[in-house]
């Protein structure tokens, strides 16, 4: 009757991983960074007291009507452009009807057949080579309103559920990929890459803890058994609340589906899509309770809203605002700032704020190499240690640029520079004040001459080596010199020593 009856349990058991292809598509819900909700003026701030950010519109009160927030539309278009999507010139709103207590109107305003963003793509790769670079196609991205939050009584005593509608009406962009990913690692890379783009173009903070980025995955297996292609039933996995969780959930599901197929031989034919949830503690996917009725959302155009028409000029203006995307930025940093691939990657992965910081510092000190070393080491170390963001870093890019300019100009060496940086951070002062405080000053030529003489007198062996042609031996004197006078610049010192020894050039 169907294919699975022809494949014996023994044949199924004999299937190896090499004959299994994993098929993954993702649905990512992204909360857009607007100040107010999608259809009313309530704030979208996270973490406020329950039901304090609601109004007649977002609680669906009788008589209330929605009015579209144009910024949400703009951020959607911006995202679409960054994901190489076609942007709809004409888009409309549809009602998705279902009952749930955190959905006040009994329907969600969404977009069915005219999503704001059409087909696009995102290229992904893995620096460790876990998979070949590939293109994941975006099927669509549509704008919709978020639901509220229900908290259920977990005691098992059937207590009442509590409903908070603060989140209700927050703008969500649902990004749907084609089933182009072939492993959990690819799915994770897609999510990471997507998050980086979204934060770069400032459409979302993508804070997964706060639910600003939520991800569901559709997954099944294509199995090759003696030339026959079998597909396992599609499972939707919900509740993947971190990239790590997504990767582990999908990995787990691959194994589970294979085991299930080996046991039952069940295939996609006639099998409805099932929903599983990821249990992060138990590290398993768990089948969710099936609904009595198959979902019938009875979509129809929302008669309370009218269509939105976007012009080429408006789209171009939004494109202008996007700026350079991460992949392009990496290339630019390598080409124009002579950064290594590695450095460029580290920098870009930190987000636009850090890149902008670097670019500003590099410009002020006119020394990309020095700037990248200091940003990737000093600055990032501090951010990691304090778990803070670049805008919280105590030294602004001007101050850092100023400090590094002094190093570039030879007024400071890097070691003293680090002392200066510490002082700047400790006392919230600028480089000049820190230099002053540390008593760093230029060593004048007579002072330098006498210091050099003192060194030469005390180190006849070194003098002899130099005279034999081993000029490098002078390096040994730098440490001694700094003990005597910490302000002395190693470069200047060595030059002066060479001059006095007549080995100039």
């Amino acid at each position, binding site marked *: 009757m169907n294919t699975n009856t022809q494949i014996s349990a023994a044949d199924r058991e004999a299937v190896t991983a090499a004959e299994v292809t994993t098929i993954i598509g993702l649905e990512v819900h992204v909360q857009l960074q*607007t100040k107010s909700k999608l259809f009313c*003026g309530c*704030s979208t701030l996270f973490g406020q007291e329950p039901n304090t950010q609601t109004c007649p519109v977002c609680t669906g009160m009788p008589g209330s009507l929605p009015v579209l927030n144009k910024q949400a539309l703009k951020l959607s278009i911006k995202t679409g452009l960054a994901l190489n999507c076609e942007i709809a010139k004409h888009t409309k709103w549809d009602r998705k009807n279902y009952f749930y207590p955190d959905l006040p109107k009994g329907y969600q305003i969404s977009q069915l057949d005219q999503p704001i963003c059409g087909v696009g793509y995102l290229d992904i790769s893995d620096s460790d080579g876990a998979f070949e670079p590939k293109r994941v196609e975006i099927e669509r991205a549509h704008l919709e309103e978020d639901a509220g939050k229900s908290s259920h009584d977990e005691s098992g005593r059937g207590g009442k*559920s*509590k*409903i*908070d509608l603060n989140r209700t009406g927050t703008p969500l962009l649902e990004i749907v990929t084609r089933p182009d990913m072939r492993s959990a690692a690819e799915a994770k890379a897609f999510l990471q890459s997507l998050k980086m783009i979204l934060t770069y173009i400032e459409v979302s903070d993508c804070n997964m803890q706060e639910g600003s980025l939520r991800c569901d995955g559709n997954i099944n297996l294509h199995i090759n058994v003696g030339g026959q292609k079998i597909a396992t039933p599609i499972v939707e996995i919900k509740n993947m609340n971190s990239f790590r969780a997504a990767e582990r959930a999908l990995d787990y599901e691959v194994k589970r589906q294979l085991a299930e197929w080996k046991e039952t031989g069940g295939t996609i034919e006639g099998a409805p899509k099932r929903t599983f949830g990821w249990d992060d503690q138990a590290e398993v996917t768990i089948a969710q*309770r099936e609904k009595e009725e198959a979902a019938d959302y009875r979509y129809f*155009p929302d008669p309370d809203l009218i269509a939105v028409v976007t012009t080429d000029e408006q789209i171009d203006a939004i494109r202008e605002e996007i700026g350079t995307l991460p992949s392009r930025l990496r290339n630019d940093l390598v080409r124009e700032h002579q950064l290594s691939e590695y450095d460029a990657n580290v920098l870009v992965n930190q987000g636009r704020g850090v890149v902008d910081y670097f670019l500003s510092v590099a410009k002020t000190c006119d020394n990309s190499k020095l700037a990248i070393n200091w940003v990737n080491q000093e600055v990032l170390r501090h951010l990691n240690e304090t778990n803070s963001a670049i805008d919280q870093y105590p030294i602004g890019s001007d101050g850092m640029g100023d400090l590094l300019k002094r190093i570039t100009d030879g007024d400071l060496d890097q070691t003293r520079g680090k002392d200066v940086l510490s002082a700047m951070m400790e006392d919230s002062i600028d480089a000049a004040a820190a230099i002053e405080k540390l008593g760093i000053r230029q060593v004048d030529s007579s002072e330098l001459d006498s210091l050099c003489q003192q060194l030469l007198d005390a180190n006849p062996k070194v003098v002899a080596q130099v005279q034999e042609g081993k000029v490098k031996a002078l390096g040994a004197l730098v440490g001694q010199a700094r003990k005597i006078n910490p302000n002395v610049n190693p470069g200047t010192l060595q030059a002066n020593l060479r001059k006095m020894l007549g080995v100039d050039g």
Partner: protein
Amino acid sequence: MSNAIDRKTALHVGKLARLELTDAQADASAKHLASILSYVDQLAEVEVPEDIEPFFGATESVNAVRDDEVRPSMDRETILRNAPDSDGEFYRVPPVFG
């Protein structure tokens, strides 16, 4: 179109609409649905030229939008006042699976 409106159909539609119908109500509902649908089925006889797009809203103007500005929300007490059950902070509803 409307050939098979029976109790089962009525119960299914009732479920979608969250109307809890007794069998008697479902039968009455099926009868009414069948009657109105047999009237409405005259729509099938209307020949619609290919270039006719459905007219979904009574206005075809476009682009009613607002700026992204936060307006004060309503205070919680006012919002919750009309609720049949709340604890002063949350709306309360019976459990999904009771």
